[in-house]
């Protein structure tokens, strides 16, 4: 029988996934700053401390390096920790544990151990949190073999991919856009997983492939709806996982549409768009390109505090519409 499907917010979907994981497996526990009584900076953990107690929902001191070290150590010894960063920007403080420890252990110890840690990173701009609390640093971690890096774009995927991450034997880094937390969408009850490493075609189209990540998936879909009225048929590919990347889905889509645009919030240069573009240029889809590849990414600047400037630094729906129109109509 199909599970009941309700409308949940992205934050509620994550909370439900964490509760299910803890109910199913007593090795699963949560760590993070202010995730206990306070419920987390974005209220994702909510009242889980009341249901599972302070032994399994642990408030950590304000030390990302310390917290990450404890989580990695716990995972090495057989536990299944889920560690929440208050803001993804603070991943910089925990790089040693993530990059040099968690990502390397299986490789360096001949496969005799694994580090089944899950780390959650509230990311992105749009909340007026200024330069040190608004970045999109997923590509930093995407560069490290040994890690898996995912960016669910819907409540359904947020729950299913978190449960897949908990079940995964390797460290999984989840980047959650802060503006998505309130987004609502259908989420089935109970346990299900959405595979890591598999992109999703959110909208089929003939004229242009937009590969988008995280919140840009919804913006690309909004742009596609407007462009449809102009007779431009856009295919939107939600990358979902940036390591390991689902190349085949993107290649097949570009072979169909002959045009590629990458839309992502992180700073444009040396980002996911560069990776996807290069991957396509190296692939069999190259001979199907009928226009230059276009990247639409964040401006080459720290995120400003001023809300108008903040909006202007990341791609918005009208930017996507204009760029897509120019690409399809052959202005570029």
């Amino acid at each position, binding site marked *: 029988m199909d599970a009941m499907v309700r409308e949940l917010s992205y934050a509620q979907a994550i909370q439900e996934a964490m509760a299910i994981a803890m109910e199913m497996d007593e090795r699963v526990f949560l760590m993070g700053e202010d995730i206990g009584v306070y419920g987390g900076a974005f209220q994702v953990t909510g009242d889980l401390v009341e249901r599972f107690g302070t032994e399994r929902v642990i408030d950590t001191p304000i030390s990302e390096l310390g917290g990450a070290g404890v989580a990695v150590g716990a995972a090495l010894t057989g536990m299944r920790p889920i560690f929440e960063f208050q803001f993804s920007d603070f991943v910089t403080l925990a790089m040693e544990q993530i990059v040099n420890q968690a990502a390397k252990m299986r490789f360096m110890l001949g496969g005799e151990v694994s580090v089944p840690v899950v780390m959650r990173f509230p990311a992105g701009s749009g909340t007026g949190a200024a330069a040190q609390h608004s970045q999109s640093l997923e590509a930093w971690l995407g560069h490290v073999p040994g890690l898996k890096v995912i960016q669910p774009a819907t409540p359904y995927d947020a729950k299913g991919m978190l449960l897949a991450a908990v079940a995964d034997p390797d460290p999984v880094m989840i980047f959650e856009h802060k503006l998505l937390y309130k987004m609502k969408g259908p989420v089935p009850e109970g346990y299900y997983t959405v595979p890591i490493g598999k992109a999703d075609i959110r909208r089929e189209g003939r004229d242009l492939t937009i590969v988008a990540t995280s919140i840009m998936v919804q913006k690309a879909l909004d742009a596609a709806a407007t462009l449809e009225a*102009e007779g431009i048929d856009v295919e939107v590919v939600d990358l979902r996982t940036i390591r390991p990347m689902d190349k085949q889905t993107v290649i097949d889509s570009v072979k169909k549409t002959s045009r590629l645009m990458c839309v992502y919030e992180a700073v444009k240069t040396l980002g996911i768009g560069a990776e996807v573009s290069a991957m396509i240029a190296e692939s069999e889809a190259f001979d*199907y390109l*009928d226009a230059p590849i276009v990247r639409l990414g964040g401006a080459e600047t720290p995120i400003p505090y001023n809300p108008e400037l903040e909006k202007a630094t990341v791609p918005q729906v009208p930017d996507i519409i204009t760029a897509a129109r120019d690409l399809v109509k*052959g202005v570029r």
Partner: protein
Amino acid sequence: MPTEVILPKVDMDMATGQISRWFAEEGARVKKGDVLFEIETDKAAMEIDAPASGVLRDVTGKEGVDIPVGAPVAWIYADDESYAPISPIEGEMSARPTEGVASGGTSQSSTALEPSPVEPTPPDRPLAGHPPLEGEGKTRATPLARRLAREAGLNLSGLTGSGPYGRVVKADVEAAISSPLEGEVSAKRTEGVASEGTAFAPSPVEPTPPDRPSAGHPPLKGEGDVLRLFEQGSYDLVPHDNMRKTIARRLVEAKSTIPHFYLTLDCELDALLALRTQINAAAPMKKTDKGDAPTYKLSVNDMVIKAMAMALKAVPDANASWTESAMVKHKHADVGVAVSIPGGLITPIIRHADEKTLSTISNEMKDLASRARSRKLKPEEYQGGTTAVSNLGMFGIKDFAAVINPPHATILAVGAGEERAVVKNGEIKIATVMSVTLSTDHRAVDGALGAELLVAFKRLIENPMGMLV
């Protein structure tokens, strides 16, 4: 650091421009604000001032050559700056791509269009230094176009690219495949077909009659196809200027995408001519350099402009522009007037012509036409408009059908006013009659609506007092 002089963007959708004339030469001392050169855009000429004072050096922007917007065309060195010429070797490398587009006879200098290595183009202006590749022996084509051409055994270099920078895209290759006479087909494909020379040239013994071009005559598309029909030396080749290219491009687009239909009416002019004489006789005089002159002198065409504008106001549904998603219904009647100028034509616009008096329209028209002839119109003076009037009456043309000038939905072609025999109440009378033909975009204006507009126009022409109130 010397000041870069670039080819500025003076028109919204301008990608390249030509310098029609330099007013200062290499080594000349210029003052900031002096007129440095004149740009010829699609339809106008514009004077560009020097951005700084100093000595003009490295004048690389040649006259009459297509230059990308933003490309440096010269440098101005301040007095305390030392000057070293650009090395000819690197100059040659970057100058070569533009040779193919240089107008006939202009020899390409060895200096570069691209900035000297001392002052690299900023990374956010990557397009500036990339003129079309033609002439370099390379064809710009997308990977998809290359693959399709390869699979079809088609030589890309014979194709004309419709994409940006003349890039050959999929559609160009598909078009070439479906009509194999365009572009060079490789030997493999033409084997068994008549050899190239005879395939194109009509037999001298039995030339195809000109009125039956489709009978056994391949379509003439490439330049070579046309030229090989004429003996060498029997013609001169005059390279197109920007205006000619624009006229060609816009008219092909208009005539092949707009479903035209035509409505013709005769208008009697006697009342209008009488009123015009009366109004002109009443014009107050003003002092000018050449003695006293009337403050206005209406032409019949001025009254046609006014009548067309008022007719559009009376039939507002016809005052429209077609777009894919919506009808643009205009609130004002802006009438473009085709003005013939040396080498082409241009259509300056009388804005809000419905609200202007005849004398205002007349004086404005004289100013626009004279500046059009010296190519001094600003783009905003000839872009847009909601309809147009084209008058060939001065040549005695009786009637003709004009091509709609988008975004207009209509254009009125005006013939000569001439005395004709007209039948009134069973009697033959003499009247001065002018035939007008309205070309109409059927997507925006249907037959009955077009007829309503033309009848409103006729009523104003035949009852011209209506234009004074």
